[in-house]
């Protein structure tokens, strides 16, 4: 199991709460494009979609967040995030969400590290990097940051699919509950990698990706009519 300090978990609840006002509600994590393509039609499809996202983009995001929370240089991690995000549409989305998270984070946990990152990346750093710096400002470690990023990777699409398909919300929550043990494993792996970055550099970060998510994000970015921004 990963190292989450069980005495300081309240901040993690605040940070990972779906009501945390950081702009995520307008994004589907690729679910809108997958629904339109007929790849998500029910709860079983949603589970497969979320599983795939968790082990690819979710793992990469969680490791970036963990590294930032462990104290690695956020600007170095921002470059590493760029290198791990081949889709220009997803890079733009990650920076927009990073900028929006930064606003909420600075209000919730004011810190010089957040101020410095905001000044260095006024148009937004990659969201997982901002998430990790935020976790650190909130007194959370690499493991907690990895959990927050990993949970976001599956929570966003699940909420979006409830809106897109009128999917039974109990079924959608059941999907998240069934994925919890896998999220534990992904967060653990990401936390270990993230902590190594401080000594060994960003090359030890995982670079798992989901090409179909990348391709569909580019297509979705060109839609004239859509419910979600990504």
């Amino acid at each position, binding site marked *: 199991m990963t190292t989450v300090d069980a005495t300081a978990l309240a901040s993690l609840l605040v940070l990972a709460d779906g*009501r945390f*006002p950081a702009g995520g*509600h307008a*994004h589907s994590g690729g679910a809108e494009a997958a629904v339109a393509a007929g790849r998500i039609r029910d709860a079983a499809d949603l589970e497969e979609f979320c599983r795939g996202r968790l082990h690819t983009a979710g793992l990469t995001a969680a490791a970036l967040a963990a590294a930032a929370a462990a104290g690695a240089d956020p600007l170095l991690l921002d470059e590493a995030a760029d290198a791990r995000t081949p889709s220009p549409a997803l890079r733009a989305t990650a920076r927009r969400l990073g*900028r929006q998270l930064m606003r909420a984070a600075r*209000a919730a946990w004011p810190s010089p590290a957040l101020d410095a990152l905001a000044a260095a990346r006024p148009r937004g750093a990659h969201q997982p990097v901002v998430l990790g710096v935020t976790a650190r400002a909130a007194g959370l470690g690499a493991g907690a940051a990895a959990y927050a990023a990993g949970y976001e990777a599956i929570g966003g699409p699940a909420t*979006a699919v409830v809106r897109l398909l009128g999917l039974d919300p109990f079924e959608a929550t059941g999907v998240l509950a069934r994925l919890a043990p896998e999220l534990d494993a992904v967060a653990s792996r990401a936390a270990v990698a993230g902590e190594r970055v401080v000594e060994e550099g960003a090359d030890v970060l995982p670079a798992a990706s989901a090409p179909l998510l990348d391709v569909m994000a580019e297509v979705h970015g060109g839609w004239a009519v*859509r*419910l979600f921004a990504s």
Partner: protein
Amino acid sequence: MHLDHSTTPYPHRHTHSATPALRPNGKRRALRIGLGGPVGTGKTATVAALCRALRDDLSIAVVTNDIYTREDAEFLLRNAVLPPERITAVETGACPHTAIRDDISANLEAIEDLEETIEDPLDLILVESGGDNLTATFSKGLVDAQIFVIDVAGGDDIPRKGGPGITGADLLVVNKTDLAPYVGVDLDGMARDAKAQRGDLPVAFTSLAAEGGVAPVRDWVRERLAAWRRT
């Protein structure tokens, strides 16, 4: 920090709520007015009419919050009420009231970008919500004042039904008064119900179809702007 909390727990009705008053560069920011209300009542038409009525005297920009398209932004662009660089659309993930109340980050970002990119300092930013239900209101962290737009065609019982937009908006606009005779609506009754719900808060009856129909709203905006400049 950008949240410069007021020390008074119950600010006076006419204090300006979105904070802070100065931009990071030390210059005064624009007054922000939100427009909300049900679908089809004339929010975009009111925004367009306000822009036409005020654009010669004021530097204005608009942020739209469409539900699933850029339709409102495109209506404003098509009608050329403002140059395109002054109109921004925010995407709301199927939930406009979330974007104007519960999670205002995308709207604040759009406002920041407009204030940074428009050369002459903005006097006024209109933030239009996508059509929503009677409970939709703007966060005080996003706008200084809000207008709630309903219309007579929605039925004359809307003011009586109340809801946060009807009871609490700084200005209630009852639009399409020209349709009242055709839909059997009693405007005096609507005015009485609105008064009962809102006390001393103002109500404007408008018919945007008529020449100069937006005048009561325009005058109210001018008053708010004058008050904003005095603070």
